[in-house]
């Protein structure tokens, strides 16, 4: 390993070292604030370092890790999008009776997994990243099991997630094995060579299918979505938010890189399977969300639908024309960013009304009745998030949807776009239902809406809402950095 490679690797090492440092610190002093600050500083430092190196030439460090602008973009996003995860968790844990410090170790390990995934172009690092991420996550999902006011559903959610994660990992592993059997290589680019040479046979195809299934579990594509609503509901809000944003987005980014670099995206079978999954995810996700009165479950189904929309851009990325391909990849990138910031706003609002000290979260629709009159700003911010998820202009979600339309139209995916229109119309119903609930006259006494909102939570809400509006009104800056990020893939 040369010194340049080592320098390039520093941000990853920083993230990796957070958990070690935390372990050392905890063995001397248990200080919640200190621990959270160390975690925070680590994420921000790593994020800034990678951000500074944007635009530099790509570096392959060992066969496992690649640092090009694409991975840098997603590492920066992971690091900065983990900041609210720390802040929300700090506030949540401070108010609950559980052991606090270990949570941050799990979180930093999960982020490490995400960072490795973002920088992986080899099946070994792919698998390591996925396992790091999901093993930490199922501990995080079941974290709040102590104390008087523990949430009962937490453990159930954790076990559910663990089992399904295990299943999906075994699919991944088997898929990797079959691919190795067919091609004899484990790098994404090596596979492309083999596919171009025509060495793809039934084993390889099977392997790719298994990989899609494994990834489908992580992204909760229909029909692999069963775990999502239960886990979203059972996990504490900060963990749900982390699960909904970073863990999904990074897996999708990696999926894009794999499908693109290996050339598997060009295969008709893969496109057909993706289109099938996409249609199902859009319709089933939005359709089942209609019936939810629990906001966390509603957001779970909504995220299923959103990853269905993303499939349209993903398929369009197989276009032969370079401009259209670039457009589709930008669409994926923009959508992921818009989805992350919007989801943080939504969960930030959920958390603002929750009371972990009593083991209660503001997850029922009726908890929001009259919020516009009790807390107008919070209600307005939450409405912005919902409208952005629904894809209404001046929000990030609209530009993202616009991008998906543009990408789909450039690849003439009219049928999928038709489904997108239908399912968006269905989706509007439940987003509006929440907004209407907030508009209804307030009921006599609602404890949820009275408690003061902690500073950290306000900060997240304000910053992320500003991002949602900024990206919706003036998206050009993000488009340009996305442009340079995807250039390395072209």
């Amino acid at each position, binding site marked *: 390993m040369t010194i340049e490679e080592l320098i390039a690797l520093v941000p990853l090492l920083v993230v990796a070292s957070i958990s070690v440092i935390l372990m050392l610190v905890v063995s001397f002093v248990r200080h919640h604030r200190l621990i959270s600050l160390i975690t925070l500083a680590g994420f921000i430092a790593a994020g800034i370092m990678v951000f500074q190196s944007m635009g530099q030439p790509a570096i392959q460090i060992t066969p496992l890790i690649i640092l090009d602008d694409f991975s840098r973009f997603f590492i920066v996003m992971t690091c900065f999008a983990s900041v609210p995860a720390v802040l929300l968790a700090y506030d949540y844990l401070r108010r609950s009776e559980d052991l606090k410090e270990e949570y941050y170790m799990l979180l930093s390990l999960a982020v490490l997994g995400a960072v490795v995934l973002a920088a992986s172009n080899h099946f070994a690092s792919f698998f390591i990243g996925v396992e790091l991420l999901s093993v930490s996550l199922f501990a995080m999902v079941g974290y709040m099991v102590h104390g008087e006011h523990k949430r009962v559903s937490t453990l159930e959610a954790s076990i559910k997630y663990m089992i399904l994660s295990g299943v999906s990992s075994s699919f991944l592993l088997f898929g990797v094995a079959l691919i190795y059997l067919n091609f004899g290589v484990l790098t994404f680019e090596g596979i492309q060579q083999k596919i171009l040479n025509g060495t793809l046979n039934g084993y390889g195809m099977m392997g790719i299918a298994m990989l899609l299934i494994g990834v489908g579990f992580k992204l909760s594509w229909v029909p692999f979505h069963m775990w999502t609503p239960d886990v979203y509901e059972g996990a504490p809000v900060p963990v749900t938010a982390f699960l909904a944003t970073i863990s999904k987005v990074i897996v999708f980014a990696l999926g894009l890189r794999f499908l693109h670099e290996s050339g598997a995206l060009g295969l008709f079978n893969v496109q057909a399977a993706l289109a099938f999954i996409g249609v199902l995810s859009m319709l089933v996700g939005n359709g089942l969300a209609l019936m939810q009165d629990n906001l966390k479950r509603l957001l779970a189904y909504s995220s299923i639908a959103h990853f269905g929309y993303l499939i349209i851009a993903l398929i369009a990325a197989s276009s032969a024309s370079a401009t259209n391909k670039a457009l589709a990849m930008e669409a994926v990138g923009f959508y992921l960013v818009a989805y992350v910031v919007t989801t943080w706003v939504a969960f930030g609002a959920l958390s603002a009304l929750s009371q972990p000290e009593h083991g209660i979260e503001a997850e029922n629709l009726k908890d929001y009745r009259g919020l516009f*009159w009790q807390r107008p700003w919070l209600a307005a911010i939450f409405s912005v998030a919902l*409208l952005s998820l*629904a894809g*209404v*202009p*001046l929000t990030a979600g*609209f530009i993202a949807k*616009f991008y998906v*339309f*543009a990408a789909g*139209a*450039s690849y003439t995916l009219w049928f999928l*776009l038709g489904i*997108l*229109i*239908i399912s*968006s*119309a269905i989706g*509007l*119903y439940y987003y*509006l*239902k929440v*907004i*209407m609930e907030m*508009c209804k006259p307030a009921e006599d006494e609602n404890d949820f809406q009275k408690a003061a909102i902690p500073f950290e939570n306000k900060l997240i809400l304000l910053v992320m809402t500003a991002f949602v509006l900024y990206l919706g009104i*003036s*998206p*050009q800056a993000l*488009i*340009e950095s996305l*442009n340079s990020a995807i250039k390395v893939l072209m």
Partner: protein
Amino acid sequence: MLVLWLIVVLFVGGVLAGLAERVHAAASRWVTLATLVVSAILLWPLACAQPQAFESVAGQSGWLAVLQWEWIPRFGITFLLAVDGISVLLIALTIFLGFIALLSAWEEIQTRVGFFYFNFLWTLAGVVGIFAALDLFLFFIFWEIMLIPMFFIIVIWGHEDRYYAALKFFIYTQASSLLLLLSMIALVFLNWQQSGEISFSWFDLLGTKTEGVFGLLLMLGFFVAFLVKLPGVPVHNWLPDAHTQAPTPGSVILAGILLKTGAYGLLRFIVPLFPEAALAFTPYALIIAVVSVLYAAKMAFAQNDMKRLIAYSSISHMGFVTLGVFSWNALALQGTLLQMIAHGLSSAGLFAMAGAIQHRLHTRALSEMGGMWSQAPRMAAIAMFFAIAALGLPGLGNFVGEFLVLLGSFQMHPIAAILAALGMILAPVYALYLLQKSFLGEQSDTFSAHSASLFEFKAREVLMMGLLIFGLILMGFFPRLLTEYSDVALNSLQALGWGP
């Protein structure tokens, strides 16, 4: 720049009106009034522009106040505002009806006053933006932006079934506007392939070759979105609910202005951008127009709810707009524009009347009304005026519009014109039915509980109605005032698509 200022003033005024509530409950109204006055003053120089002030943009003459800023260069999206004679007239209508709606809201809106006027002015700002935006992306943004405040107006201040109505309104329009967005993008890509430049500017897209089935499908995407807003018959279902459940000022804005955005879209986009496809589609569009006119008129007659009746009459009247646009004829186009403005005034009057009655009787059911004439003669006379305006009495604005549309379309499609003219027989049936059920006949029990002095129109309401009556009479006797103004714009539009 003037148009931009106009929009900015309305947006900022909305925020100020929202904040003013904290100072004093009534302050919001005055801030709103001041905002509308300022925007009227800003509009004045545009309305008085001399012919030499008109600019030529990309070979199209007759434009005022052109403003183009770079916005999202990745997609060739610019912040492009410009107005021609048509837009100025419609913006003037918007501001004018803004005053009317404000007057009708003055006493009706008592709760959450600040938030109401915030939404109110933002809706107006969105509508002005629609009439002024000539970048398709910008147009779409305004198209959507006006929905959200309107949604809040219905949800928060509406009547008994408001949640259902608001949801229906939003989903109908939003689903169809996604279709519009898709068609816009596809059109832009088509133009990109042909010209090598990506642009969302209306002027650049005019030259796109949109023949064949693909062009027809694109046109249908636009057409459906505008037809929903207009509304035309198969997709009109949201309107009776939304108009009925909205508070009075909401109904006035919905019927008077929001419907005109659909008509404006038909006029501005369908034929100029897709001349061949629109020509091929003409027979079907005419069927839709005629069915809208007749079916909605028949439905209006069957209603017991006063606002529903008026809502259906709106659908019937807007059928003439579709007829006019697809008549491929200069007379019909002029008639279309006049019909839009006249219907804006008369339906605003009718909804304000319905609102005033509901405010007093707490019911909209015609079966519970009757015999109000003797108690409230002033109100009754005004109601009479709007009823006969709606039925198309010569000398009033609506007659001019419908007559010109029929005259123009008769030259091109006599059968459609003859069938649509039957609407002018059905209109008196429901308009007079409305009048008979409410103001004539035997005095009802609901009504006798009120003393006459409480019932009669107050000065504010007489002023509001007087303004509308003045506008309708002026239009009826001197339509030349308006057509002179819009001639240049209509002619250049016609040259784009309808041909000589």
